[in-house]
Structures are given as structure tokens and as C-alpha cells.
């Protein structure tokens, strides 16, 4: 090996140590730009190499850096690094690396609602942890799998995962909060508000006991969701405001933005669309900064609804269209259809029947791409209702006879 390469390797070791130290001493602080840029610059070099160098130190740095990047919201930017690192861990047969990096990658996919990918990666990571007999991270993954199962409508499977995790964890372990969170989410899906609230409060208590502020804030947000469902809007608003304060104190601007989006919905329901739009706008700015396209698509849909409500139709149309475009890339087919429907309804409201017809028929074709039959059926029914409404509108207008015939021809 050349002398230059030796020196370079020494520099790499020193860089890793320095950045590791900086990351460890700033555990409770948000990731600053300087530290992020330095770490990414180093990883750019390390991960470009076809044969991993200083792999264990690199892997440890990645595992330390991953939660920071996730918390800072740079999820899309961070995924390629973790994917590459996961591949390298396979090349060098590093089981701990494979499991740990898989867990971090799975979390990112889960946060991006990419359930299938998240499940696949988390399961293979779980297998490794199981074989290594590492119960805590294994339980962590079980909780994540439970959360995903819940979002995929597999409620009893989700409960199984959460209960299995609880059995593995000691009473004092903070990770138990996630198990109760999953159980609370299952109850919420079943619309059993009382049970949902009980589980979420149990989860909150654990977070309070272990001084886990970030997850305390998340549980307050969960409570806000439940209270919103129970139509206790003012109480929900209080929960969201509390959560936002906690997130902001932690410097967790992305989670704060997600909660602001929820708060906006409450204002919308309370009949204050302008206040709702203000909150959406603040949230949107954060999502744009960190390139979180999934959350961006959510906030755009919310904006669309409120713009439509106050008859700012062109802004509503733009918001829906942007959301559809985003979801074509980062969402599921169902998530695209879920925005096509309100856009179609907006077209009907603004007498743009041709575009309405196009978008509904496009949505009908897209139904075949949905894996879950119950969800596909639900959307089919919604689209058909909208098409009937469109048909009536078209019939009322003589000048759209031609459009009407085109439309009927496709029925």
C-alpha cells in the first residue's frame, strides 16, 4: 500500500473518531449543518470504495448518524447512503451491520409509508437479531412490524407483534412505549377510542418516566388524533400545541411540522380555514427544506381542501395536482387515487366536466394496481358516486352533450 494511502486511512480513522465524538456529545441537540456536511463528505468517500475500508468504524458512524438524519428530516437524501452501506455489510458479512443498518433503513421506509419495502427489510433485520439473540433490537423491530401491519389493515397481526415485543422487554425498558403505541393505534383503527386512549396514555407514562421527550411529544400528538376523532376539537388542539412546543424545544422541526399540519386540520374543522392554511404553510416550508416529499404531499392535499372550501379554486387545483405528482413517485397507487377523487370533485364544482371525467376514469384504471381488495373496493365505490354526480351535472347542461356521450361511452 502506498504511503499516501496509509496517511489517507489514518485521516479517515481520525475523521470518523472526530465526527463520532461530535455526534455523541450532541445527542440531545438537533443535527447542525456543519456536522451533517462533514459526515456526508466523509461517507461520500468511504462508501464509494468498492472494498470497504475501516468498515466497523464506518458502520458505527452510520448507525450513530442515522437517527440524527432521520430526526433532521433528511430522509430521501439519506436512504441511498444506508442502502449502499447495507450492501457493503453483506459484502463483508457483518451481521451486526446488516441488522442495524436494516433497522435504520426500515424505519426510514416506514416513515415514508413505503410499507412493503419497510416490512421486507425489517424482517430480514429481525432474523439476524433473532439469530444473534439480541432481544431489545429484535423487540424494536417487532414493534415496527406491528405498526406496519396496522397500517396495512392487519390488526390482529399488529397486536401479535406488539404483545410479542412486550414479552421480550423488561418492565423498565423505554421501548415498551412503542408496543403500547402500536396497541393504541390498533384500537384507534377499530374506533375503540377509550381503549386507544388508555394505551396511548400508558405509552406516554413510560416516555415520561424515561424522560423520552420526543416520544412524549408523539404521544400527545396521538392523543390529539383520538380527540379529533371523538370530535373534541379544542382538547385535540391543546394536545397538538403541547406536542409542537415539545418538538420545537427538541429542535425537531419535521415532527413539529407534521403536528402543525394536524393542528391546521383542527382549525379547518373549527371553521377557521385561514388559520389552517397558515399552519399548512409553515409545515410546507419545513418539508420543502428537507425534501420530505411524502409529508409535502399530505400538506398539499390539506391545502387543497381548505382552498377549495374558501373557493380559491385555482390554488386548490394546483395543490391537488402537485400532490398527485408527488404521490406518483413516493406514494402507493391508493394514495394517488385518494387525491384524484377530490381533484375530480373540484373539477365538477368548477364546471370543468371534461377534466373531471378524465381524472375519474384515470383513477378507475389505477384501481387495478392496489394490492388490498378492501381498499380498492372502497375507492371504486367513491369514484362511482362521483361519476354519478358528474353524470347528473352533465345532463343538466345542454352544451356538454358531446362530453356527456364520451363519458357515457366509457361507462
Amino acid at each position: 500500500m502506498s504511503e499516501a494511502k496509509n496517511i489517507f486511512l489514518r485521516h479517515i480513522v481520525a475523521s470518523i473518531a472526530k465526527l463520532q465524538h461530535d455526534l455523541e456529545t450532541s445527542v440531545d441537540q438537533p443535527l447542525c449543518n456543519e456536522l451533517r456536511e462533514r459526515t456526508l463528505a466523509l461517507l461520500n468517500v468511504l462508501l464509494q470504495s468498492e472494498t470497504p475500508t475501516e468498515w466497523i468504524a464506518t458502520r458505527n458512524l452510520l448507525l450513530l448518524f442515522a437517527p440524527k438524519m432521520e430526526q433532521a428530516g433528511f430522509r430521501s437524501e439519506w436512504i441511498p447512503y444506508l442502502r449502499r452501506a447495507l450492501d457493503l455489510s453483506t459484502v463483508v458479512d457483518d451481521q451486526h451491520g446488516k441488522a442495524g443498518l436494516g433497522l435504520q433503513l426500515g424505519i426510514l421506509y416506514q416513515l415514508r409509508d413505503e410499507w412493503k419495502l419497510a416490512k421486507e427489510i425489517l424482517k430480514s433485520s429481525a432474523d439476524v437479531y433473532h439469530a444473534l439473540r439480541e432481544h431489545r433490537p429484535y423487540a424494536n423491530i417487532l414493534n415496527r412490524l406491528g405498526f406496519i401491519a396496522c397500517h396495512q389493515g392487519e390488526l390482529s397481526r399488529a397486536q401479535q407483534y406488539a404483545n410479542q415485543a412486550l414479552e421480550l422487554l423488561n418492565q423498565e425498558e423505554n421501548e415498551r412505549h412503542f408496543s403500547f403505541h402500536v396497541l393504541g393505534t390498533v384500537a384507534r383503527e377499530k374506533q375503540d377510542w377509550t381503549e386507544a386512549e388508555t394505551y396511548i396514555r400508558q405509552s406516554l407514562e413510560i416516555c415520561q418516566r424515561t424522560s423520552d421527550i420526543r416520544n412524549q411529544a408523539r404521544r400527545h400528538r396521538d392523543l390529539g388524533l383520538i380527540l379529533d376523532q371523538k370530535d373534541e376539537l379544542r382538547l385535540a388542539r391543546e394536545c397538538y400545541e403541547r406536542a409542537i412546543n415539545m418538538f420545537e424545544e427538541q429542535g425537531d422541526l419535521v415532527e413539529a411540522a407534521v403536528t402543525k399540519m394536524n393542528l391546521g386540520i383542527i382549525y379547518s374543522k373549527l371553521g377557521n380555514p385561514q388559520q389552517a392554511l397558515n399552519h399548512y404553510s409553515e409545515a410546507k416550508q419545513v418539508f420543502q427544506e428537507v425534501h420530505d416529499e411524502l409529508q409535502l404531499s399530505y400538506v398539499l392535499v390539506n391545502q387543497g381542501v381548505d382552498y377549495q372550501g374558501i373557493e380559491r379554486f385555482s390554488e386548490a387545483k394546483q395543490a391537488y395536482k402537485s400532490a398527485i405528482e408527488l404521490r406518483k413517485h413516493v406514494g402507493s397507487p391508493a394514495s394517488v387515487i385518494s387525491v384524484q377523487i377530490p381533484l375530480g370533485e373540484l373539477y365538477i364544482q368548477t364546471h370543468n366536466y371534461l377534466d373531471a371525467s378524465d381524472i375519474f376514469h384515470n383513477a378507475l384504471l389505477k384501481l387495478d394496481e392496489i394490492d388490498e381488495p378492501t381498499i380498492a373496493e372502497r375507492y371504486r365505490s367513491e369514484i362511482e358516486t362521483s361519476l354519478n354526480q358528474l353524470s347528473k351535472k352533465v345532463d343538466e347542461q345542454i352544451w356538454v352533450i358531446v362530453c356527456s356521450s364520451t363519458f357515457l361511452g366509457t361507462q
Partner: protein
Amino acid sequence: MSSRKQAISSIVNKKEVKSALEQWGRVKSQSTPLESLHLFQQIQQRLSSLPASESQKIPGAHSGLPNQRRVINVLLHEAIESLKQIDAETSKLLTERYLDGLSVIELAYRRNVAESYLYKQINQAIEDLAAIILTREVGFLNRKKEVWLQRIDAASYLELVGAEKHKQRLYNLITGEESPWVISVQGIGGIGKTSLTHAVILQVLDDCPFDEVYWVSAKSERFSPIGTIFGDSSAPTQSRSIFFKLLQQVAPDKIDSTRSPFEQILKILQTYLKSQRALVVIDNLETVTDLEELLPHLESLVNPSRIVLTSREHAGFIQPVQRFAIPDLDKPSSLQLIRQEAINTNLVEIGQSEDDELLPIYQTVGGNPLALRLATGLLHTQSLSTLLTSFEDAPTSQVGNLYDFIYQQSWQQLEELERQVLLAMPLTPEAGDALSYLAEIVSLSQAKISSAINQLANLNLIQVHREKPAYRYSIHSLTRTFLLNTAIGWK
């Protein structure tokens, strides 16, 4: 679109302001005083961004007046309000005379003064108002310049040698009233495309012939994917990312993401760039792999705005793009650059050398500024005659080989400590980093490595960005490539 080359003081004079005041409330008017001010453009944009119902609430902007008149009214009203903070009586006098339309006789009667005295007071008041408008315009311009400067990276050169002629030619092209609207500054690596463009833009900022200045780097700061492992087929293309980056500067609130429909991004850019005279710089275009997506759209964004591209390549550029090739420095400029570099880095003897003595460097290296700087840097460690002897073997047919040769020469001349410091550079962000961080990587004190840094800067292997509070050190992309590929053999 009016030219902005006029001095501000000639626009904001008593006569112009009086003419503007006299037209208050008039639907039809012969002229549009104060139209050339940046303040005018700013108010115009502010009014057009508001719904009609909202903009009518702004004092002076009531409906029924032509748009330009509304803008002037708002400008005057805001200035009169500012005057009120300093001299309420003068402000009141102007309001009553011009905004409320009271006659001089009526005003003289109300104030119990002679008409002639009141005329004098009005004259003085208009002068005061002109001074206020001038101050507001200068303040507005200064704030704008600060924003523009933030968009442009700090310079990595001390002085551009031999570029005066090109600089003036490029300045004229950029600030001209007619086509070409898209200019591509081209040349091989190290020729100084970014530096020349940067220097011209700084001059543009001083003269302010544009309403806005935007600077976007096409260089990706993130991973360059290896094969398909990193490949994200759904990632936005580089061209789209550039347009999106530009839009983030042009109209940050107007767009949602790089995934927003491309037509939408383009339409908003067109709306803004067509309605103002903006200068857009897209730097490092050679790093864009999908130029065919970007280039056809440029034409729709220009006139009155102008786009300047910097790029190593020139293949595939289409008709509306005017190529501005930066040639190698000529002999006198090359020799001047060698001397300048020598003087800046305390090579006094070289700085005082005769042309004949320095000519062989130029004859070997040619007129590429980076190559000349690197070669001059070598004179810190070897005599001119040794350098010239070693250059006898230099491959001169291809500039890439020449660079590799010079880098090898520089590398071989480095002391152990200098090599250590230079080898830390590829581990730092491309924008550079502070001395303290480099010291941590090299595991030595800042004091110990600072002399090595100075020497590397003398050798032109490190670029120094003189920023506050701390200097930043970076390396040229060609140096990074040499270090990783040749010196270290990383891949």
C-alpha cells in the same frame, strides 16, 4: 424595459418628484416619473402579488387608476409617511397640496402666510421628499445586494490577471439591451470560467442594471451513484433540479417540490423572468448529464432576463446560446500572472524576472491560468532551471495529461506535513472547511498545520476563501480527482 444605467440621483431629483406629485390621481399622464427606480419595481411586484381587493386597500393604490400610476402613488405615499416621522408639518403640507389637491391660495390662507412664502415651503418640501425617496432607494438596493451576494459563493481568487478584456466583453454582453439572451462561458478545466463570471457578476451588482440576480450551481453536493446500486430511478433529473433550485430563489413560495409538474415549474419561472430584468447564472453545467432536457427551455425564460452558463463542454448547444469562449491567456498576460503569483506568495526573485527567463514556463504550460499557477507554485520548492528541466518531459498534447504531470511534480515536491494536510482535503465538504477541522483530521495542532496550509496555498493546491469569522479551505475539483485517483488510488 428601461435601462437602469442612469445614476440614481439623476432619477430622484426634485423635478421628477414634483412631476410625480402633480400627477397624483390623474388617470392619464404623459410621462411615468420614477419608473426607473428599483423601488418602483418592488412596489409593482408587491401590488401584483395581492388579490385586487387587498391591493386596493393600500393607500394610493385605489382602483380606477392605471397600474403604473397606482405604483407611483404608493411610492409617494410611503415616502410622505416616512417624512412625517421626521417633519410632520412638511409632510402635511405635501399631502394637502398634492394628495388632497388644495390650491396654493387655500393653503396660504389656512397657514396665514403669503403665497410666495408657501411656494418656497413647497419647493423645500419636495426637495426633502426627493431626499427621502433617494435614501429609500439606496437602502433598498443595498438590502438587495446583500441578498444577491448571499446567492453567490465567496471568491477563491485574489485578482484576475489578463482577464480585463474578457471581463469587459462579457460584461457588455451580459448587460446589453439586445440578444444574445443566453450566453455560455466555455473553456477547459482551470481556465477560470467561474472566476471570470464571478468577477463580472460582482461588477453587475455594483452597477445594478438588473432587477434581480440569481446564481445556481449545477454541481451535485451529494453522492454520485455507483452503477445501479444507488440509482434512484424516481429521483428528479439534474435539469429539473436546476430549475427547481432556481425557482427556490426566484419565487420560493410558489412551488412545492422538484416533483411538481415540470410545466408548472417552467410556467412560474417564465412568469417571473419575463416580467423583470433578471440575470441568472447556472455554474458548472458540465456536471449535468441530461442537458438535452434543460437547453430547449432556456429560450422561453429569457428576454428581458438573461441567462449565463459556465461549462467545460460546448457540444450540443443550440442556436440561441451565444458561446463565449475563454481562450488561454496570451504571452504577456501569462507572464504577468506568473509574476503576480510569485509576488503574492513572496517569490520576490521570480516576480522580478525578465520575460526571457519566464517564457519557457509559458511555452511549456501554455496560457491555462490554473496550470500556470500550479507551475509557479512549484518554484517555491525548486529553482527555475530545475523546473524547466523537469518540464522538458511534460506531455503537452492534452491538457488532462499536462495537469497530471504538473500535479505529480507538485506532489513530489511536498514535505511530509504538507502531504498529510493535502490528503485530508478530500474528506472535507466540497465547499471547504475550517483550519480547526483540518487539524483534527490530521491529528496535529492548528499552529503546526497552518504553515503547511500556507505553503499549499502558495503552491495553489489549496484555495483560500477569506470569509468571516474563519477562513475556509477547499481544493479545486481537478486537485480532488488527482488526489483520490492518482495519489491515493482510492477506487
